[in-house]
């Protein structure tokens, strides 16, 4: 028995195919436990929801703080009743729990639909249907065509004779081409249920690890034959890939559930925090400090003030005996807490409720948006995490997947050019590989050769469509009766294009040629070309070569090179040929065979041979293939650029294809200077040199260009996966820095050949850079999931439910990103920033008078306002107008926002929540509070207020201030509102009316359940006094004056772009 894996025995797992344990005694049998095939993306279960959710919620600083305040209120004698903070807190916790519970329920539902999809499993020689989640390691699975693998499988046998199967991994790495996988040599023959069931074998493979392209399996051991065969990634079918072009296969599960490579490529779902929330927390800390300072100052002053006993305990106001006996320390501490409780409204509980509600309700506008509905797909935008709405207005980096996101994932042959003439007419018939019949109108020599070359020089395979009972199988239903499969989508496009155009020129289908394929010089990404050597029916030998223009031109000896113009957005391939004499062919054969048989440096020698063979070419023409961009993709990218966002394309595709798309989508312009950081370059120079080189040229470039006019050169960077992993190597911190530096100055970056985790790494790298930019990732495949999870905001495209499930936002098409960011994101940011600032402002206004009042009531924690006002101020009197504002405010029309992406720059970098603006709002609040308090103070000070000579008490004083307060903060919001719909009118005036009605009612009757009647008729008495009315009007006017003034002056003297457009509109 061969034991290759002996040394890392612990790291490997042994799988018994079909759960057939070895005969006892043959080997020490250790049952390993593997997880079932359940995929879990949900956070809670029914049982742990309440404790886990509570724990998570109280981990939030604010909630924890409110809980503490509530507990303090319960424990000590406080100026306000525990209800005032308990009720809002309870409300917050409940609303949040319901929301999170609902979101998790949706996740459960999605998980269930995946986990319960039926799978065919071979058990005792029969095929049994099982739910996907019940699949276990060692189960033998029967997969049919177009089914998606439920877990990682080792291919045992296939319906095809050669034991291969074709698989598309589009949802894993975005490559839609068909890849060939091979069955294990020894089990190839077992291709019925019965036969498969009698395989007795074990597989030893390493424990799961996330690298998609690596598979080190120690091998299959069929127990009776004692035969060992190593397995590689060509045997491993990954979860998420789809079986294509193969009727059925048998395969054995080796990694299941959360251990599949795809699941390992996910990252754990962490809660994303938006920048606004971070600012909010920072403001909160400031307010907490203010609060503690206030409480501290008041406590200190209280003890200074009451140092003399007549103040502490005048004869009219004695303490109780129990209070007298308390220790001074406990008294001080209690007083401090009491002040904290009194002023705790400065940190508003209701802000969290309102923010949550705003986010939750606001997200419906995205789902409701008619313009983000796609008629074709019948899909509309979906919001999975409403916590990040405003982050959409803050995006600085957009990472997008290419295939399927930017493009339709559908290559199309657009045109060709022979001798400088653009041709639209070809007629070709392609049959099985290598033998092509070409028919053409009486051709010119070059033309004929060109189309011959196109038809011959490829590695396309034909799949004939089977027709069973008149129902067509296959993905291209109704398009053609047969379709082509190749590892290169361009070739498919070329061949398909030819087939398509054949119909236009049916008349010239007159002559058939038969060619014999002699050699194929396969494609590689270094040479960027491929060739075939054929012999035609007349015995002539030709070498046809096809490749990227840059790789063909240097080898061309004749042909109109200049005529072949590259067209923007199209992927061009040049076609050239060379006539070979039999002697030359002999030589070529000799060289190739020599190289092929070489034992050492085979690749190198082959490359050398190819290099010699592919020379002295005659250029025939060029073809143009397009991976059709999604509708308006270029327009969207341009808008994003204009809005100041940097767009990165991260793709698993080849560099050439990706670059072509980037040109087409206007990511790179013709005048963009492309910096390359690819394997090709790093092979020539060391990575170190390349990096330094780039950053140096780059810097000198920018310096120069900035010194010359403002006409700055646009830089674009292309980097591939291999180089990136070299850059990201943890030992090379300075490489990262240089790399980031280069990236920062490039408006567009293309990363090709990326593994899913690398995509996430890139996002992480950018996110962690100094400026901590906000990132957004768009992708449609499962391979984008990790990047979507890593980015601040994830958005997905059309295909792949996996991506939809894990994204924060889902949009049907890439073009919807424009409205999503420029309109919705902008609005959400404006709305929430006003919401946050306004909330702090209105609570400063609310609590600051209470603070000043302490100086006039002997620091006794006497509340200025009645309990009802304290509780309801944030809950009902002033909550609805701001909530509504934060839902429907539109400072600029959405059409203008869309037309003028540069407006997005106005709010970049969290500009509305910067410290100066926060300080302005706070100072405004303090000013308003001072006006209100001292206005009322001077009115009340030692004079009569009524026309009947009767006096008002402290509750009237508080009510007067409170009335001014409610009106002032509501009017302040009214002044900030730019979009007055009838709902705004209703809510703003309605909440003022509600306040008045409530106050009338609250003071109107003796409330039987209350033990105090302090508010009885206070409000009515106040309104019956003329000076009260006059002073209310005066104080409101005085409070609002500076803000109006500031607005008008700023708008007139230093207008922002937004403000200019508002006036102009």
């Amino acid at each position, binding site marked *: 028995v061969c034991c290759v894996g002996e040394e890392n025995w612990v790291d490997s797992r042994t799988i018994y195919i079909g759960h057939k344990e070895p005969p006892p005694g043959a080997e020490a049998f250790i049952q390993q436990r593997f997880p079932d095939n359940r995929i879990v993306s949900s956070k809670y279960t029914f049982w742990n929801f309440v404790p886990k959710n509570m724990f998570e919620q109280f981990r939030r600083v604010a909630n924890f703080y409110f809980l503490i305040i509530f507990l303090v209120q319960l424990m000590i004698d406080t*100026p306000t009743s525990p209800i005032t903070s308990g009720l809002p807190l309870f409300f917050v916790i409940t609303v949040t729990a319901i929301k999170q519970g609902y979101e998790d329920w949706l996740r459960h539902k999605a998980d269930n639909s995946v986990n319960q999809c039926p799978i065919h499993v071979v058990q005792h020689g029969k095929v049994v249907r099982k739910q996907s989640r019940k699949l276990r390691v060692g189960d033998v699975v029967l997969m049919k065509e177009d089914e998606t693998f439920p877990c990682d499988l080792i291919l045992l046998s296939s319906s095809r004779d050669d034991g291969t199967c074709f698989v598309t991994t589009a949802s894993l790495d975005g490559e839609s081409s068909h890849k060939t996988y091979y069955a294990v040599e020894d089990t190839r023959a077992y291709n019925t249920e019965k036969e498969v069931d009698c395989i007795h074998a074990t597989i030893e493979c390493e424990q799961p690890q996330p690298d998609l392209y690596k598979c080190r399996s120690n091998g299959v051991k069929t127990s009776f034959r004692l035969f060992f065969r190593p397995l590689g990634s060509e045997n491993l079918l990954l979860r998420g890939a789809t079986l294509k072009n193969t009727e059925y296969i048998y395969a054995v599960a080796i990694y299941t559930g959360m251990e599949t490579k795809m699941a390992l490529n996910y990252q754990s779902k962490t809660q994303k925090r938006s920048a606004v929330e971070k600012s909010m927390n920072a403001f909160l800390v400031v307010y907490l400090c203010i609060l503690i300072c206030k409480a501290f100052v008041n406590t200190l002053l209280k003890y200074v003030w009451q140092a003399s006993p*007549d103040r502490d305990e*005048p*004869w*009219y*106001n*004695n*303490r109780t*005996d129990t209070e007298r006996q308390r220790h001074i320390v406990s008294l001080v501490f209690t007083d401090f807490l009491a002040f904290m409780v009194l002023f705790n409204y400065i940190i508003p509980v209701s802000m969290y409720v309102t923010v949550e509600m705003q986010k939750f309700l606001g997200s419906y506008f995205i789902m*409701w948006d*008619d*313009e983000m*509905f796609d*008629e074709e797909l*019948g899909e*509309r935008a979906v919001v999975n995490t409403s916590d990040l709405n405003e982050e959409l207005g803050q995006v600085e980096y957009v990472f997008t997947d290419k295939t399927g996101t930017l493009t339709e994932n559908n290559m199309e042959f657009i045109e060709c050019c022979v001798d400088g003439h653009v041709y639209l007419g070809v007629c070709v018939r392609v049959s099985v590989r290598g033998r092509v019949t070409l028919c053409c109108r009486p051709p010119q020599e070059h033309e004929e050769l060109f189309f011959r070359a196109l038809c011959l020089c490829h590695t396309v395979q034909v799949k004939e469509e089977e027709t069973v009972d008149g129902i067509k199988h296959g993905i291209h239903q109704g398009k053609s009766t047969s379709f082509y499969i190749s590892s290169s989508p361009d070739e498919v496009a070329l061949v398909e294009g030819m087939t398509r155009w054949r119909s236009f020129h049916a008349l010239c289908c007159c002559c058939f040629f038969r060619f014999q394929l002699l050699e194929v010089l396969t494609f590689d990404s270094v040479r960027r070309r491929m060739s075939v050597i054929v012999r035609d029916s007349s015995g002539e030998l030709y070498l046809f070569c096809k490749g990227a223009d840059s790789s063909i031109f240097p080898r061309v000896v004749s042909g109109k090179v200049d005529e072949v113009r590259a067209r923007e957005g199209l992927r061009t391939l040049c076609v050239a040929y060379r006539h070979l004499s039999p002697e030359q062919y002999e030589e070529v054969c000799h060289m190739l065979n020599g190289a092929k048989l070489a034992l050492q440096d085979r690749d190198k020698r082959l490359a050398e041979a190819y290099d010699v063979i592919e020379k002295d070419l005659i250029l025939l023409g060029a073809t143009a293939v397009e991976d059709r961009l999604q509708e308006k993709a270029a327009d969207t990218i341009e808008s994003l650029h204009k809005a100041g966002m940097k767009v990165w394309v991260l793709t698993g595709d080849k560099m050439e294809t990706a670059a072509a798309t980037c040109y087409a989508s206007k990511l790179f312009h013709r005048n963009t200077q492309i910096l390359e950081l690819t394997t090709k370059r790093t092979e020539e120079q060391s990575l170190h040199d390349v990096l330094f080189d780039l950053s140096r040229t780059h810097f000198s470039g920018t310096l120069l260009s900035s010194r010359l006019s403002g006409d700055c050169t646009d830089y674009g960077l292309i980097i591939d996966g291999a180089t990136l992993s070299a850059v990201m190597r943890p030992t090379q911190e300075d490489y990262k820095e240089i790399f980031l530096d280069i990236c920062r100055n490039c408006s567009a970056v293309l990363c090709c050949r990326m593994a899913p985790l690398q995509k996430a790494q890139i996002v992480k790298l950018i996110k962690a850079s100094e400026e901590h930019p906000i990132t957004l990732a768009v992708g449609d495949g499962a391979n984008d999931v990790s990047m979507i999870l890593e980015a601040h905001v994830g958005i997905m495209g059309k295909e792949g439910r996996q991506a939809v499930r894990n994204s924060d936002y889902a949009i049907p098409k890439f073009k919807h990103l424009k409205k999503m960011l420029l309109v919705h994101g902008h609005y959400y940011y404006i709305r929430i920033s006003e919401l946050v600032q306004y909330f702090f402002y209105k609570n400063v206004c609310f609590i600051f008078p209470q603070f000043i009042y302490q100086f*006039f*009531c002997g620091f*006794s924690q006497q509340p200025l306002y009645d309990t009802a006002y304290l509780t309801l101020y944030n809950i009902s009197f002033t909550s609805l107008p701001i909530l509504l504002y934060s839902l*429907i405010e539109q400072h600029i029309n959405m059409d203008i926002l869309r037309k003028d992406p540069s407006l997005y720059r106005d709010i970049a970098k969290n500009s509305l929540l910067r410290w100066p603006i926060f300080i302005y709002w706070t100072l405004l609040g303090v000013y308003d509070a001072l006006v209100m308090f001292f*206005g009322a103070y*001077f*009115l009340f000070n*030692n*004079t*009569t*207020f*009524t*026309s009947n*000579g*009767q*006096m008002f*008490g*402290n509750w009237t004083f508080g009510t007067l201030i409170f009335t001014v307060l409610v009106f002032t903060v509501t009017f302040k919001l009214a*002044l900030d509102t*730019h*979009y*007055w*719909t009838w709902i*705004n009118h209703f809510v703003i005036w309605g909440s003022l009316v509600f306040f008045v009605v409530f106050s009338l009612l609250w003071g109107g009757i*003796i409330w039987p359940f*209350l*033990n*105090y009647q302090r508010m*009885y*008729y206070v409000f009515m008495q106040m309104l019956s006094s*003329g*000076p009260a009315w*006059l002073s209310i009007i*005066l104080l409101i*006017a*005085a409070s609002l*004056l500076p803000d*109006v003034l500031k607005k*008008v*002056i700023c708008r*007139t003297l230093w207008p922002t772009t937004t403000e200019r457009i*508002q*006036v102009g*509109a």
Partner: protein
Amino acid sequence: MMASSYNAKEEDGHHPGASNNGGPGVVKSKKPDNTAFKQQRLPAWQPILTAGTVLPAFFVIGLIFIPIGIGLYVTSNNIKEYEIDYTGADPGDECYNCSQNFTWNSTTPCVCSVPFTLTQPFESNVFMYYGLSNFYQNHRRYVKSRDDSQLNGDSSALMNPSKECEPYRTSGAQPIAPCGAIANSLFNDTLELYYIDSNGTSNAVPLVKKGIAWWTDKHVKFRNPGGNDNLTIAFQGTSKPVNWRKPVFEMDTDPENNGFINEDFIVWMRTAALPTFRKLYRIIQKKSSSTPTLASGNYVLNITYNYPVRSFDGRKRMILSTISWMGGKNPFLGIAYITVGSICFFLGVVLLIIHHKYDTRNNSADIPG
């Protein structure tokens, strides 16, 4: 220049063909409703604050506020107010002895008289106030030390007052009625006013004690237990507040002003907002249109000095004031109105200049662009 525009979009206008698109049922159900609200295209008024729009508002506010301010100021100045401090803090003050010799237990009340002269006659109704300074009626411990249920005539609360009243809740084993610190510290100086006519004889000025408390307080909020008749029985089993000389049911001989509904008591129970405050004590009603309510001349204020304020550096005052429609003498409101009005007017002018300058600059900048 109108900087606001009315943005009214037709509800169905912006997505033509949405309704007649006969797609499959699945598509239809997912398609968002095309309502103005859901598409955020509700018709809206979009006002924008610019110098142009705000300017007129500033001028209007200025032009309204300044006259109001002047009116208020003049009214306030026309109000006559006379105030004397009778604390007796300094030796030589009339009430110095009374304030110095104060004890809670004294049986004979200390009386002192303060003479004063009104130089101007008080024409309309005159309101007599007592004022206290440095008296923290708004101290939290004090404010909450009352039982509104007891004061509302609730019999269970009468016998078992609220805990908030501590330490003025019980006296010995008996509950205190009315309980609490506020009631306990009821202002109990008696003020009498005498007019000294030219002959040197003093005539008592009639002081009306009805109507000094809020009507609602007297008739709804404050009620005697078991109605107004026979308060002695109603208050049986309760104790008088510690500092009171008489029990609550002997406040007044008039049954309509006795017990909890005694107006002096009700006035006191409305705690003042600030440590310096005044409370309405009596009203001197105008008798006839020909004679002033209080003619100019010499007066004597007779004080039965029961209320100690010296211990906490307090002051006691007596204030005589006429009242206009805007209350007592208070120049602040008028001045404030004039100030705000003038600032608005001034800012209006400033804005006009800025607006004018900016507008020309803006226009010239716009032409090449």
